[in-house]
């Protein structure tokens, strides 16, 4: 796969992902004198949490998260080589050379240490109509609002699960959007005495939550609990979402009420982006609560005895505060191994505190694995579960029956993929693998399913890297 590198390049530490975790680690390591390269596929550093608003938005209303701008500035001042618009799409056989695609085409980067800080993305479970334009993730609505001052719609319903729905609804209110309502799959806001007590031990977060709830109440935004999307229906032209029907979480196929909308924003919490960790051969284990694969690391984020470290939400969902603490912990571990001073000794305690809060918060909401199982079980046979390859729930169910392997706790997922092509399109299964796994009766997504390219790369560019003409390029594009 490696062939003759197009632009051989090396550094002490390569950081994949320029969000809170990667930036915090990069700042510390570069300040301590190591050569650090930060890679990010976005046009600017910041990740999702510190995503930079457009110049027009900053002129009008300033930066809603100025700490992000300061952190990015500190990383650059510390001397880190920051490469934006650069995707990591593969790993060479040596396990420490990353295959990149950026503004100047493909390149390689070899590092003594790799920090995987690729963050997370939103979990979306299919429902009839989920492919309609105007159905987006909650996070996309937030980026449009906070980053570009653009309304995702004029009448918007948010649905899913987790605390993220509330601040995004408030961002939409800021722009004058009519928020039709918020449908939460669980019942987290009927706080028991014990839940309130635990929440009260994180007063700042409790106050933030109270502000959102008060704001939503002032605007009379309904907050429906125990509700999921039963279906979305199109406008007469068929090219945009026009209505949303909700159902009780326990009976997702039985409609309760319908609402006219011009955007529907969905998201059931977040999942780690684990492709690069998988390509690097990191060991992963299925988490029974979320159904997600989590990289197996020691407390410093190190994968086994390797030179690969994981930090932030790529290691497990825990919010931006824990991600930043992770970055410091990983940096301290690498500096220790290098025999250099400068690591932040107090970061581990911060990391544990944030992890405690995240754990408590997560338990307020339904377990994603169970919710996924319940919602996918109710999916009509004709709904596409794999958006890329247009594979229906019925096709996956039929393949699962053929590929039954009860000794593995469900159907053989590799066989189901091969039979249906589910998860084999451009998104590499990021949007459907959890659903396909649930339809096949698996408790968690199986490991070992990442393949190159993890991000879109023109075939001609791959050929350039391999030093072979396009016609003889091996089948690497899936």
């Amino acid at each position, binding site marked *: 796969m490696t062939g003759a590198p197009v632009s051989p390049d090396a550094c002490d530490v390569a950081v994949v992902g320029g969000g809170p975790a990667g930036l915090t680690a990069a700042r510390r390591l570069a300040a301590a004198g190591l050569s650090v390269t930060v890679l990010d596929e976005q*046009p600017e550093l910041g990740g999702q949490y510190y995503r930079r608003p457009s110049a027009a938005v900053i002129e009008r209303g300033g930066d809603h998260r100025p700490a992000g701008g300061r952190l990015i500035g500190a990383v650059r001042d510390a001397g880190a080589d920051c490469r934006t618009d650069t995707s990591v799409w593969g790993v060479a056989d040596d396990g420490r050379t990353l295959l990149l695609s950026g503004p100047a085409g493909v390149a390689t980067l070899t590092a003594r240490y790799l920090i995987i800080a690729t963050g997370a993305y939103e979990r979306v479970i299919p429902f009839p109509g989920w492919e309609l334009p*105007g159905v987006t993730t909650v996070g996309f609505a937030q980026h449009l609002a906070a980053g570009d001052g*653009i309304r995702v719609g004029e009448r918007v319903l948010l649905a899913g699960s987790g605390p993220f729905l509330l601040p995004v609804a408030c961002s939409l209110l800021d722009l004058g959007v009519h928020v039709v309502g918020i449908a939460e799959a669980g019942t987290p806001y009927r706080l028991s005495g014990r839940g309130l007590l635990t929440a009260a031990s994180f007063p700042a977060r409790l106050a933030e939550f109270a502000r959102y709830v008060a704001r939503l109440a002032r605007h009379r935004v309904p907050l429906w609990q125990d509700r999921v999307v039963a279906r979305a229906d199109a406008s007469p032209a068929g*090219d945009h979402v026009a209505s949303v029907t909700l159902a009780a979480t326990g009976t997702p196929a039985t409609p309760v009420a319908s609402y006219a909308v011009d955007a529907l924003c969905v998201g059931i919490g977040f999942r780690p982006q684990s492709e690069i960790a998988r390509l690097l051969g990191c060991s992963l284990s299925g988490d029974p609560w979320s159904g997600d694969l989590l990289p197996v690391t020691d407390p410093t984020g190190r994968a086994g005895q390797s030179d690969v470290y994981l930090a932030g939400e790529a290691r497990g969902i825990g919010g931006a505060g824990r991600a930043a603490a992770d970055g410091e912990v990983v940096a301290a571990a690498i500096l220790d191994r290098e025999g250099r001073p400068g690591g932040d000794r107090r970061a581990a305690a911060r990391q544990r505190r944030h992890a405690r809060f995240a754990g408590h918060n997560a338990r307020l909401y339904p377990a994603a694995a169970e919710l996924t199982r319940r919602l996918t079980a109710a999916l009509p046979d004709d709904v596409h579960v794999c958006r*890329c390859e247009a594979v229906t729930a019925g096709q996956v169910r039929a393949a699962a029956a053929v590929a039954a392997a009860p000794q593995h706790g469900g159907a053989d997922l590799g066989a189901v993929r091969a039979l249906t092509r589910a998860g084999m399109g*451009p998104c590499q299964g990021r*949007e459907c693998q959890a659903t396909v796994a649930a339809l096949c009766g698996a408790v968690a997504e199986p490991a070992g399913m990442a393949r190159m390219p993890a991000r*879109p790369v023109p075939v001609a560019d791959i050929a350039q890297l391999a030093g072979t003409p396009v016609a003889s390029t091996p089948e690497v594009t899936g």
Partner: protein
Amino acid sequence: MNARIEVDGETVSAPRGAMLTAALIAAGRWVLRAHPVTGTPRGPLCGMGVCLECEVTVDGRPATRACLTRVTDGMRVWTGTGGSAS
């Protein structure tokens, strides 16, 4: 300050420095391609580079994710070209 971009040959005004997905949505262009198998209209889903529903051709470069691309003056965008990376 607005930029002028060309979308499928038509001039569209967009806030300079906006994400291309945002500029397209602000211009009422939600449909960025027809699904290659079903022919159904598709628009952006995730807005952060993972779903690949917003792939367009930008200044001749195919398979460009609009959600990771900032608008520049004179940018030429062609929709209906997604899926070329697979």
